[in-house]
């Protein structure tokens, strides 16, 4: 006896396709809902984050420079993570997401201030998540102004009094216009895919139990893997359609670019879909009715929206929330999508995220294979 029969797998797959095609309502919703969500979220969401990871490139160690930095840190918006020594290092950190800001203090900063040369303090910001960066950048000039006033007291007070002793240049990378929609659209891909993929697989399987067809199905020699794959694959196709719809609508409605590697996106995307479908399959093994399947699916969707970094910047979340967030596939896929679409990332930039999704996926699949009942008990 073979452990996997292509014939049986094919039969389940084919059957699922037919059923999906005949269920026009669900089919229409699976395509329609993403567009609706895209429009709604794209125009609405905003937030006010804190403690954003920041790196410093210090070419001047003067008291003024340090005052500026401590002013930034005490403001709550920024959290200094370390020192970089070159511009490339800073750019890389922004690209892979280790930092949201890189502050560059130019050489002879204090001396130039005293000489009235109005030196430029450069702040590079990862604006691919504009809600995270926007407010912080907005607060920046106030913070620095205060810091300077505190430093230049006594004999140097006149320096501080003069109009702008130095200027702050904010260099917004990846999303120069700070359009929230630019960030929301890629994030939405992750959330909507999770929502529909988990829900429809869970329902498709529980439907068999509810309608009684499960009894005939498991009375046949069909194996769990054949059922699982046969049921999951048709919805992979739905996931493809949704994503294409998204990318096109995102481009047309919000002008969201796609700067990075298509291959990196494709790999991450497939992996993500499979993990979500497996999660749906797992839910279906835990519940008895379609109603329960729906509720359980929504249970998984809440953390996906709240803790994945979709609604609130991941870096700004409390530690415990980050721990939970890191176990959610959307958290990692979200990073992949933002990096690839907005920051032009390539495969090498997303390997860590891919690995995380893969690990989550393997765990989910193992549990669901163990849970799948081959009897009616």
């Amino acid at each position: 006896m073979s452990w996997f029969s292509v014939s049986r797998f094919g039969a389940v797959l084919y059957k699922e396709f037919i059923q999906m095609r005949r269920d026009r309502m669900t089919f229409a919703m699976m395509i329609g809902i993403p567009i609706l969500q895209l429009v709604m979220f794209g125009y609405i969401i905003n937030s006010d984050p804190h403690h954003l990871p920041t790196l410093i490139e210090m070419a001047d160690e003067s008291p003024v420079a340090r005052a500026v930095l401590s002013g930034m840190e005490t403001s709550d918006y920024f959290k200094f993570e370390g020192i970089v020594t070159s511009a490339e290092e800073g750019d890389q950190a922004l690209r892979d997401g280790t930092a949201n800001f890189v502050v560059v203090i130019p050489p002879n900063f204090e001396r130039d201030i005293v000489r009235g040369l109005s030196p430029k303090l450069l702040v590079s910001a990862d604006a691919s998540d504009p809600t995270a960066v926007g407010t912080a950048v907005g607060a920046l000039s106030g913070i620095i102004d205060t810091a300077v006033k505190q430093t230049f007291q006594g004999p140097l007070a006149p320096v501080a009094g003069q109009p702008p002793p130095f200027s702050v240049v904010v260099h917004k990378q990846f999303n120069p216009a700070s359009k929230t929609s630019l960030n929301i659209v890629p994030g939405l891909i992750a959330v909507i895919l999770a929502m529909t993929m988990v829900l429809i697989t869970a329902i498709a399987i529980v439907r068999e139990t509810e309608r009684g067809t499960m009894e005939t199905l498991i009375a046949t020699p069909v194996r769990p893997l054949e059922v699982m794959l046969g049921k999951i694959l048709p919805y992979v196709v739905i996931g493809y359609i949704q994503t294409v719809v998204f990318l096109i609508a995102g481009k047309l409605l919000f002008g969201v670019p796609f700067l990075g590697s298509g291959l990196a996106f494709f790999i991450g995307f497939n992996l993500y879909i499979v993990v979500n479908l497996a999660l749906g399959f797992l839910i279906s093994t835990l519940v008895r009715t379609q109603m329960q399947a729906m509720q359980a699916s929504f249970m998984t969707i809440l953390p996906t929206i709240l803790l994945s970094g979709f609604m609130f910047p991941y870096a700004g979340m409390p530690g415990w929330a980050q721990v939970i967030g890191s176990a959610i596939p959307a958290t990692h896929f979200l990073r992949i999508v933002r990096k690839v679409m907005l920051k032009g990332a390539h495969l090498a930039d997303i390997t860590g995220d891919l690995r995380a999704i893969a690990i989550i996926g393997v765990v989910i699949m193992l549990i669901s294979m163990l849970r799948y009942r081959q009897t009616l008990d």
Partner: protein
Amino acid sequence: MSTTPADSVSDRSEPAIVVKGLTKIYNGKKVVNEVDMSVPKGAIYGFIGPNGSGKTTTIRMMCALLTPDGGEGHTLGYDIHKDARAIKENVGYMTQKFSLYGDLTIRENLDFMARMYRVKNRKKVVDETLRTLGLEGRGKQLAGTLSGGWKQRLALAACMQHKPALLLLDEPTAGVDPKARRDFWDEIRQLSKQGVTVLVSTHYMDEAVQCDYIAYIAYGKKLIDGPATEIPHQVGLTTWRVSGPDLVQLEEELRADPRVEQVARFGAQLHVSSTDSAGLDAVVAEKSGENDARKWEKKEAELEEVFIYLMATAADNFGVNGGPSA
């Protein structure tokens, strides 16, 4: 490759199904209570009992769809605890409730089932099934839109396409019209002649009499089983037949008498039965004294009376009032 039953069952005399002490507990209640059963190879084995007596549950355990909470057994020589897959490959199970896909067409359903069992020459087999069913022209109709009786017939055909050595049929003819039922039983007998074993649960008396063997189950307990011809003796039912005037009146009087367990009308005769032989004889003595015009005749109960008797206990066994608890 699918394993044929011949691989493991060489001895022709070994029963197709043997179970010992088979038990299933739901919510603390033994809905199947230490059932022993042996279904000989090639036999048509009738499984009867009131609603909720545990027939479906027993059948499900026999085809490894349910894990027994107690007892052991072999189906086609395969252990029901360990060899679920081999059992599933070689058994055709027709569920009581229609459980094919309502949103697939008739042909798609047959094709799906054929693929599940990896039937060779699938297209030909499916065509053949459609033809035997007399549904060639309706292959494209959605199964869900079939009438109740046709659904049954489709389900039955679907579970036989892979030519299983054993058929487990759970009320296969419920709601099927008399002509189709006759055809169905003709086919069952045909299959049985070819060596296929058929276990069939039914509530129809006229079907029970067609079986070679009978098991009667109530409250999850198997009360009677054996060759059909021995069943009347096992039940120990005494029957009097009476013909003559005013049978309607007599029937009412007899029904009211506690010593009479069953009064059934067969044409111009009443068949009056009871397991209380002495009590019944006394009743007959009284009644025959009242009216000489009636003719009374004592006969050993026939299968039909016995089945009517057995099935008359058809209150839901584990229903509202509950059976004897486990």
